[in-house]
């Protein structure tokens, strides 16, 4: 019996590009499928798709070894537009399906495309468990704070009191913080970007693609039909530098057009300070550390308007991955007990012979 399945006779044991001879150089175009893209004109999803296609060649995987798995919602259509393997599954279950695929096929690079309703409402359980298991899958969650495909109902990230078709008097549900959930589930890579921050998104997707383990990226995305401008207050070109803080490991959390604002810890409370005022210098500004759980916790909980919105990598730590531990267990069992002998197994326990 084969313990390792590969798609074909290409000899790729674990799919890392290095093991394949003469990999052709791929470009963005190689990742564009022949399907007509059918999101609403002006939707933020177009930009996410474009950046995703753009970074794909960077990882060195042949495109047949890349799989995009999605759930239900506008985001769920993305796999159709990627010229890779794709599986458009059912509402909320993509992380579970991806977990099984990655366990069976460690050689594949697996991405999950989901939305705020798909990941945090109906699929909340699968999200947290795939993250806590450190399943080596990159989950990209489009957060438009609304249900788009079903035409405009409140989502788990909609702000309290939001008036939608399903909440004409305003919602009475507090919103959930996607990054705080990912952190509570101990995802090993947690990041945030914005549909219109194209370069930042490329860098973030690139970092996500190069991480091995449970990867969660929230992309703030504009649904111009049902929740237009949901993130505008801090993402518009004129204000974004003053209202977001770009995280970089080992660098102080400085932001603002004039690069003179920063986040400082007063006791355990973060506060926004201005460098050069009240004797504050760059040395007072908190330095980002992707491995520090307390910093990650703080960053997952600050948001506009009290604070600038953190974008970039909040957390990046290394832990053994789910599929690797599974594979190791199989190898160890085989090493200690020998490859399974079915005849012996069937004849185990107390047997007797009838003449």
């Amino acid at each position, binding site marked *: 019996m084969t313990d390792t*399945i590969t*798609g074909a006779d290409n000899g790729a044991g674990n799919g890392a590009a290095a093991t394949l001879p003469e990999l052709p150089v791929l470009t963005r175009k190689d990742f564009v499928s022949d399907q007509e893209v059918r999101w609403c004109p002006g939707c933020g999803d177009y930009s996410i798709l474009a950046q995703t296609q753009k970074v794909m060649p960077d990882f060195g995987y042949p495109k047949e070894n890349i799989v995009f798995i999605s759930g239900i919602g506008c985001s769920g259509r993305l796999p159709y537009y990627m010229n890779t393997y794709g599986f458009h599954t059912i509402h909320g279950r993509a992380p579970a399906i991806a977990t099984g695929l990655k366990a069976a096929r460690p050689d594949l690079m697996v991405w999950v495309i989901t939305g705020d309703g798909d990941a945090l409402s109906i699929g909340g359980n699968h999200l947290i468990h795939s993250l806590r298991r450190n399943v080596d899958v990159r989950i990209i969650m489009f957060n438009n704070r609304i249900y788009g495909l079903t035409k405009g109902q409140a989502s788990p990230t909609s702000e309290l009191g939001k008036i939608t078709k399903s909440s004409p008097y305003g919602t009475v549900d507090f919103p959930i913080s996607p990054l705080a959930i990912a952190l509570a589930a101990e995802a090993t890579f947690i990041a945030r970007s914005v549909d219109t921050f194209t370069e930042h998104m490329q860098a973030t997707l690139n970092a996500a693609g190069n991480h091995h383990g449970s990867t969660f990226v929230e992309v703030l995305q504009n649904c111009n039909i049902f929740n237009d401008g949901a993130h505008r207050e801090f993402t518009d070109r004129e204000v974004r530098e003053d209202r977001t803080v770009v995280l970089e490991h080992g660098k102080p959390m400085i932001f603002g057009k004039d690069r003179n604002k920063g986040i400082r810890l007063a006791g355990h409370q973060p506060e926004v300070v201005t460098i050069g005022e009240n004797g504050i210098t760059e040395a007072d500004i908190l330095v980002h550390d992707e491995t520090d759980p307390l910093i990650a916790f703080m960053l997952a909980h600050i948001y506009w308007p009290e604070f600038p919105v953190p974008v970039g990598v909040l957390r990046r730590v290394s832990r053994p991955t789910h599929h690797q531990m599974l594979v190791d267990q199989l190898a160890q069992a085989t090493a200690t007990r020998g490859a399974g002998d079915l005849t012996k197994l069937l004849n185990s326990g107390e047997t007797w012979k009838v003449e």
Partner: protein
Amino acid sequence: MSTEAPLKATPTTQKQLERVTIRFAGDSGDGMQLTGTQFTKNAAAFGNDISTFPDYPAEIRAPAGSLPGVSGFQLSFSSTDIHTPGDAPDVLVAMNPAALKANLGELPAGGALIVNEDAFTPGNLQKVGYASNPLGDGSLKQWNLFSVPVSTLNSRALEGLGLTNKQVDLTKNFFALGLMFWLYERDMAATVSWIDDKFKKRPEIAEGNKRALKAGYNFGETTEIFHERYVVPPAKLRPGHYRNITGNEATALGMVAASQLAERPIFYGSYPITPASDILHQLAGYKNFGVKTFQAEDEIAAVGAAIGASYGGAMGLTASSGPGIALKTEAMGLAVMVELPLVVIDVQRAGPSTGMPTKTEQGDLLQVLFGRNGESPLVVLAPATPAECFTFAIEAWRIALKYMTPVVYMSDAFLANGAEPWRIPNLADLSSIAVPNRTAREGFYPYLRDETTLARPWALPGTPGLEHRIGGLEKADVMGNVSYDPDNHHRMTLLRQAKIDGIAADIPPLEVHGPAEGDLLVLGWGSTYGAIRSAVKRLQDRGASIAHAHLRYLNPLPENVGDVLKAYKRVLIPELNLGQLRMLIRARYLIDAIGYNRVRGKPFRIAELEAEAVRVLATLGVTIA
């Protein structure tokens, strides 16, 4: 070993019996399952045909001495071919008043009743509502009562070992076992070595259990209470190597065998649920067979991960019971739509809702056939005996792989936990079920079907040039792009149905035990096989024109079912539900089948089916001698 019982003045006589059914009953802490299993192993190794049925409470630790805490194990051993663990016990071993009260109703008058009189304390009697001690008030007159001070005799035998009272008490089931070994003239060596092995690290406990076992045996030997011993000679089983096997064990082994025959690894996604969890426990130990197991966060993730694994080319497998199958429903629909191989095991239990988790029922047939949105056909199989669980695991995979379809494999609590001797198959006799992956680029389309099987190609991620997208949205015939075209949806719906229907040509016809035509056909499915087979056999012996047919393929049905049914004047369908197969048979073949339906959480008794068949025959004016 001294038991202080007086030596026998009169020698015991010996009597030969064809078949004996014993029920061990006690508190769930009394070790009755272990006692029953040990006796079963002994009988099996001796060469008897056996059939067992454990009956245990849902609560792990119901209050000691209470009725809900009673745990029972029934086993039947015989010198002839048997199919059920017996309708009613010939011997009831009751370790306390609760066990007596819960089981006495099923012991026929004249049956042997062996009780531990030490447990009949005022407190224990009161707990289960006995106003007076039944051992002394004459209320047990119609049975053959043997009142034995098991606890007292046992603790005396263990004196000087330095065990605590609690430890001594825990060995008393071995006293009962020893007594039964004596009564049926059994050799205890295997149990002695089992004890030595089990308690290797605790020799004093091993010694305690061995002393208890021997004390029970010697008690039979020396006391005046028993005047007769019984011998049940070995049965004439087909030559071969045998082992004792439960349905769940056979299912797990069958899955591993299927993996080898298909040359693909099993991925088993599962969430703990009674009575299916044992399959997870067992498969989790088969890592050196390449089996990957995944204890998921819920039933949905369990089946979802299995589908993901199948998408990657592994054999995605999941199991549950009714409530869990309900949760897996949506994902099973996805597997139907994307046409990937998947096997879903449903170990049925009494429902609806949480129902009676440890008790058996056949209530999920319509659920697995029709419990999904849209026209969502899949294959449904149902092994009839614990041994068949092995072959049908392979059969489920043969069909799933060849036809790229989900297959539901129906077991139930009785089949899962019941045991029988299993003739271990020779691997060389099993045929390959391997299927190729699609690798050729030329002419590849995700929904281009094989002309005979109508299966779509299995093109695994990692295959260069075959990058494609699948999903739950309707796909265009052949091309596989998303399609909302009305005629395409109609065509695809018919194609999915035709693929499943076509499997009927690739399965064996329905077999009949008995005359090919006649007065009455008894039609069953699943774990009721043994009871129906025995009841029909008895009536055949009594001269009735009666036959038995048992469906293992519920969807599609074998091609000859209609012809078989129409060859009899009446069709009786006994089921442990309110008539689910009967509804299908009536709808499909327009036959006015009669139902016999009970949902007591217990398997059918042979006698009730026999009586029902006699009643149906009477409606034809046929009387049976």
